[in-house]
């Protein structure tokens, strides 16, 4: 098992190198100048040149890339051109915001999605099946940025009972430890903040969770249907086991295998793909951070952050695979 993990980790290296090359080439191909971007329209050519020199932007690309790579290898994510802040520090702030939102969204998606999928499969062709699967189709067809706006329109503008943006009401005292606000509020036993954070998570969480929820529900249903046809379910029935045991133990455990993969994939996708949601709900997360960095030609930020996102993505998938192993004893990892 350990060997398997080590081997998989080694296999990540070429992928991450590929990602870094792709990022590096793309960001350098984008027209625009980080120096200008940082100094603004008022800087003189001399100042720009000096800054470019200082940032090493005039060096050959190979050299710049090599420098980036060697820094990364040494664990140095670099410094933002724009803010001069160490990227690692900034990520410690923003990553938790995105991860918290993603986890929240995924929990919503998994709980509702799996439950709906199982019930729909067990009661195939029932009204619940029809409604939930139609709902799931609606979910995957929904432009989430639009859904977000509509929710804001309804819940914030019209009804005024959910905050339209941010993670926490200004003025709400919260001592941050991990920057996962929900966790922090629990750790500091701050119930008011917990409630506030939770309320702030609701709308973006739903917006972000809609698509995975729909996908998980559909996947669970079809996987359950498939499994329910299997011989071993027939065996379980022939043994006279009770129905809930058959459904929630025998069937669901097998059916969860493909769902698990989907969950892993979606989780990874959400982490890097929350740009739109974060934009609409003014969520100070990593998606928006890179997006702004792309617009601001903040090369180091884009390079390092995308690499980190990619790393998380592949790690999440690795973890999914390992979980798979626990769920499915047939798969052997040597």
């Amino acid at each position: 098992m350990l060997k398997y993990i080590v081997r998989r980790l080694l296999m990540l290296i070429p992928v991450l190198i590929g990602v870094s090359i792709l990022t590096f080439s793309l960001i350098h191909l984008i027209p625009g100048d980080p120096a200008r971007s940082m100094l603004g329209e008022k800087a003189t050519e001399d100042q720009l040149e000096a800054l470019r020199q200082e940032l090493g932007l005039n060096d050959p690309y190979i050299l710049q890339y090599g420098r980036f790579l060697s820094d990364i290898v040494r664990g140095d994510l670099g410094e933002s051109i724009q803010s001069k802040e160490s990227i690692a520090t900034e990520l410690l702030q923003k990553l938790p915001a995105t991860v918290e939102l993603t986890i929240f969204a995924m929990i919503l998606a998994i709980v509702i999605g799996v439950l709906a999928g199982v019930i729909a499969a067990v009661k195939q062709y029932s009204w619940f099946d029809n409604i939930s699967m139609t709902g799931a189709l609606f979910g995957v067809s929904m432009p989430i940025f639009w859904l977000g706006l509509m929710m804001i329109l309804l819940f914030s503008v019209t009804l005024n009972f959910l905050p339209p943006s941010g993670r926490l009401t200004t003025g709400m005292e919260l001592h941050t430890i991990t920057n996962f606000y929900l966790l922090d509020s629990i750790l500091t036993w701050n119930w008011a903040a917990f409630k506030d954070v939770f309320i702030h998570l609701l709308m973006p969480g739903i917006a972000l969770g809609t698509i995975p929820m729909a996908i998980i529900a559909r996947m669970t249903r079809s996987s359950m249907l498939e499994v329910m046809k299997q011989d071993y379910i027939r065996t379980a029935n022939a043994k006279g086991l009770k129905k809930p045991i058959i459904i929630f133990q025998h069937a669901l455990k097998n059916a969860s295998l493909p769902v698990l993969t989907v969950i892993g994939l979606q989780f990874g996708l959400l982490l890097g793909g929350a740009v739109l949601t974060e934009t609409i709900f003014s969520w100070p997360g990593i998606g928006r951070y890179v997006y702004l960095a792309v617009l601001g030609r903040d090369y180091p930020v884009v390079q390092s952050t995308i690499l980190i996102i990619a790393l998380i993505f592949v790690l999440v998938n690795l973890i999914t695979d390992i979980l798979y192993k626990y769920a499915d004893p047939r798969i052997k990892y040597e």
Partner: protein
Amino acid sequence: MSTLLELKNIKKHFPLKSEKLLSREKPVLKAVDGISLSVKSGETLGLVGESGCGKSTAGRLALRLLEPTAGQIIFKGEDITELRGEKLRKLRKDMQIIFQDPYASLNPRKTIEKTITEPMKIFGIPKEKRKKTLDRLLNVVGLSSYHKHRYPHEFSGGQRQRIGIARALALEPELVICDEPVSALDVSIQAQVINLMEDLQKEFDLTYVFIAHDLSVVHHISDRVAVMYLGSIVEVGDAHEVYQNPKHPYTQALLSAVPEANPQQEKQRIILKGDLPSPANPPEGCKFHTRCPFAEEICRVQKPALKKVSENGQIAACHFVKEVVGPEATANLS
């Protein structure tokens, strides 16, 4: 009778996924582990053995559909082991294969006509001739020519098997490898196909290598029989002789295990203990020793060679069978 096909000490080792991180020694699955066989023009050679013992692999090797790991294949006196590209394709004209699964062996997206005429098209036979041959083939395998525009899914298993046979015969091959052509069929249909194949053999002067695990079918159709166990041949000989007077303990056990549809006949059964060992990790010495009721120390350490065990050229590989020295001693081995 001249020798049409000869396999000399042929081996096929499939690589397995490496267990160790960086080990030199790649684990392999020894599907076929050094078999030698000769097939004479016009005869039917039966190849029997338990599931996974390497029958199909041997058949595919003979056709060069798989690359042998070691050994030599001689067809019509020519060494075809190293043939490649165009030459190999030319060879296909003379040797064909019929598959076990009548469902998987026909392209579901092609009409019967296309499936049967494809080989002729590949070998540049003019359209007119193709048409004529098609009609004739359909007739001999017992299908009507109005069937030709239909798709495989419109046929039953037995009919599909006939289509597969027609395709194999389209190029008028000399050798046909039949890989369990009747195993998937119901008994009543099985007889139809066996009869058809016997008729065709006469009509087209075919040589068959008939692979099956059903001993009675093999007995029925074969002139000679070869018995395989775990990638090796344990006994070869005239069909009657082998069935009447099996020399190798495995052949004996195999024959005794066949439940016969005849309540009168009380048989002395040899029940083998245990299961077929894995070809990835075959036993040392005689591969059969783990299940052999007569195994002794020598069987565990020394691999028995095939030797002539009767006057009529029956050969077997067992330490405890007496060798008969005669004029034909090496005829089947060389």
